[in-house]
């Protein structure tokens, strides 16, 4: 049982270390001054409060243990509460808790001079505001009786509270190029944002109640781009997606106007459920206003903007949100029928608006669709096709898609002939009718195609049954005759 003995020995020694350390703490425990002991005679009782004129109140209870552990434990009560002593206890009147606090904070400056505290940039900017008649309360940040040494001053309920104690005020950051950025953070906005459960340093890493590194950025934009890197710590999937995007490519090529996370999503005020489509298109509009104008006039845009229909595609439905690729590439072209098909092949959505889902099927089963299908599959294993195949957008347009029903139909038809000629040299007016405009052949639409195909549908099985019967009869007869 050697190992057992060892464990007991170890535990015993730990116990002794523990006892000794407690002993040393109590040894260092300063005895309270006589005056303090007198004060505590009342103030150690829970439940005594000081009331103000506006009915606010503040507890007058003092936790002796906490005071003993504080950095001011060598002081006595009247050192700070200068109007009070063991035999003086004047009744004072204050309008509000705030007024009381401001008044109390003035005491701090007896020892901590303005010059002394302004060595810290945070204090300097706060003191700057005091000249504008704004008062700051030392105890809001540092506490009162439980005041801790600066290095270990974890006296805030939360880190957010700590940071906001400065950043809730008007602060500015000046960049090398002279631009300034307001560092004031609206606590209400944070509480309303999706990130209200996070603390400041979750995003602003490197910063905490102990650390506030000085960082130097050339411009405001440099700072914004660098700050957006924070998002990837949690949203890594989205971040990797953006690395495939044209925006990221532009950014890495030196175009600092290319958007980063915060340009679209905001920073402290990221709203929950910001998926309302009218709201999303506006984000893209900021940099792509011309395209937004065209889109707004399209059948999709009109339905969104004037009727608030949420089924219509917005920018990100076709271009995606994070991995936005260059839409001018042939890879993107090839995906167009799938992109349009996401909605136009979806019966549930199309039925709402009286639209047919045949449009995708008819395209895919026709010459263009079949060829495109093969090109897509072939390019991996065989070769990259040199020819471009007509896709939805070639006839219908992209951002300017108009309705094929009603007055726009004639314009589309007229444009179609021109569009055909782009690939089919010498195509005449008749040529475009070779494409049945997404209609399935019927007696009214393409009757010739309908009738011929009907004849075959009847005749082929009929002929086959006849031939098989003949063969079976022949075999049977042969067997019988033998």
């Amino acid at each position: 049982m050697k190992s057992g003995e060892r464990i007991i020995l170890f535990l015993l020694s730990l116990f002794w270390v523990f006892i000794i350390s407690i002993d040393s703490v109590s040894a260092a425990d300063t005895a309270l001054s006589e005056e303090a002991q007198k004060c505590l005679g009342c103030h150690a009782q829970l439940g005594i409060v000081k009331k103000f004129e506006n009915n606010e109140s503040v507890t007058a209870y003092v936790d002796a243990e906490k005071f003993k552990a504080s950095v001011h434990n060598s002081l006595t009560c009247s050192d700070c509460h200068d109007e009070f002593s063991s035999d003086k206890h004047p009744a004072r009147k204050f309008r509000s808790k705030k007024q009381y606090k401001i008044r109390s904070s003035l005491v701090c400056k007896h020892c901590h001079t303005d010059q002394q505290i302004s060595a810290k940039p945070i204090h300097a900017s706060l003191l700057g505001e005091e000249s504008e008649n704004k008062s700051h309360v030392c105890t809001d940040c540092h506490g009162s009786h439980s005041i801790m040494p600066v290095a270990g001053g974890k006296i805030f309920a939360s880190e957010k509270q700590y940071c906001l104690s400065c950043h809730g005020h008007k602060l500015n950051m000046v960049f090398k190029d002279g631009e300034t950025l307001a560092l004031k953070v609206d606590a209400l906005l944070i509480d309303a944002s999706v990130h209200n459960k996070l603390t400041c340093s979750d995003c602003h890493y490197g910063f905490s109640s102990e650390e506030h590194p000085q960082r130097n950025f050339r411009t405001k934009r440099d700072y914004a781009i660098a700050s957006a890197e924070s998002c990837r710590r949690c949203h890594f999937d989205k971040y990797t997606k953006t690395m495939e995007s044209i925006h990221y490519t532009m950014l890495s090529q030196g175009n600092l106007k290319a958007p980063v996370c915060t340009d679209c999503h905001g920073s402290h005020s990221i709203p929950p459920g910001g998926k309302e489509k009218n709201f999303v298109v506006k984000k893209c509009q900021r940099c792509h206003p011309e395209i937004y104008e065209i889109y707004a006039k399209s059948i999709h845009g009109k339905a969104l903007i004037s009727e608030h229909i949420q089924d219509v595609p917005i920018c990100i439905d076709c271009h995606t949100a994070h991995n936005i690729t260059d839409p001018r590439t042939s890879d993107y072209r090839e995906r167009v029928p799938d992109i349009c098909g996401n909605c136009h092949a979806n019966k549930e959505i199309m039925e709402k608006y009286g639209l047919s889902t045949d449009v995708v099927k008819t395209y895919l089963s026709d010459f263009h669709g079949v060829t495109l299908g093969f090109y897509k599959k072939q390019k991996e294993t065989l070769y990259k096709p040199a020819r471009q195949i007509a896709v939805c957008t070639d006839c219908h347009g992209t951002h300017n898609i108009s309705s094929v029903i009603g007055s726009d139909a004639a314009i589309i038809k007229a444009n179609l002939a021109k569009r055909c000629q782009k690939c089919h040299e010498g195509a005449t007016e008749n040529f475009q009718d070779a494409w049945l405009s997404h209609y399935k052949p019927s007696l009214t639409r393409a009757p010739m195609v309908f009738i011929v195909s009907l004849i075959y549908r009847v005749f082929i099985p009929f002929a086959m049954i006849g031939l098989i019967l003949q063969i079976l009869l022949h075999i049977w007869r042969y067997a019988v005759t033998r």
Partner: protein
Amino acid sequence: MKGDNIIKEDKIRRFSTTRIIEHWMTIITLGILGVTGLSQKFYSLALSQWFIFQLGGIDNVRLIHRYTGIALSIVIAVHIIAGIIGVVFKKWQTSMIINKKDFLDAIHNIKYYIGIESHPARCDRYDYKQKFEYWGVLISGLLMVVTGMALWFPTLVTRFLPGEVIPTAKILHTNQAFLVFLIVALWHIYNSILSPEVFPLDTVIFTGKISKERMIHEHPLEYERLFNISLEGSEGEGIPKDKVAT
């Protein structure tokens, strides 16, 4: 005697070398057109896709299909021109022409299969099955050439005809081709390979020669004409050998 040239031992000469070559050309071109065409018609099948990939992609398959189509067109054109010249100038027999007797023979044979008639129809150089198949394939072939050209050059065709002609041509082309394929796969393969009468293979179109027994059995009228004798009365199975002219 006419028969002396034709008969060599027990075999009778039935097809000339030109016809044998023609048949080979048809097998090859129709074979290529069939696999390249059907894999396009049924493009979504895994087998079709595998095949198209083996040939190096859809563009290659279309190219092969079109140029083989030209080859078949030439075979058909030569066949028709030679046929016309033969009939007009060389006094070839018009034995392929369908007449009333062919329809009667067809009905007769069905009756025979069911058991109403005691013996099969007595046919001449080509029986009704062969005639129907011949015309079926020839007319389909012409239809393929015409519609195939329309699909190859749609811009040219729509200069003269309405646009709807192109999808119609596609329906005609693919369905007629599929029909021909099914007839060949079922009917022709049965009659010339699987039928118990010829199994394992009807070699006549490859060797050009037919045996006397089969000639008497399948083409009695031609046999009678060639040898100037009547087989009537000894019709049916088991013709006595000594009665057959040599």
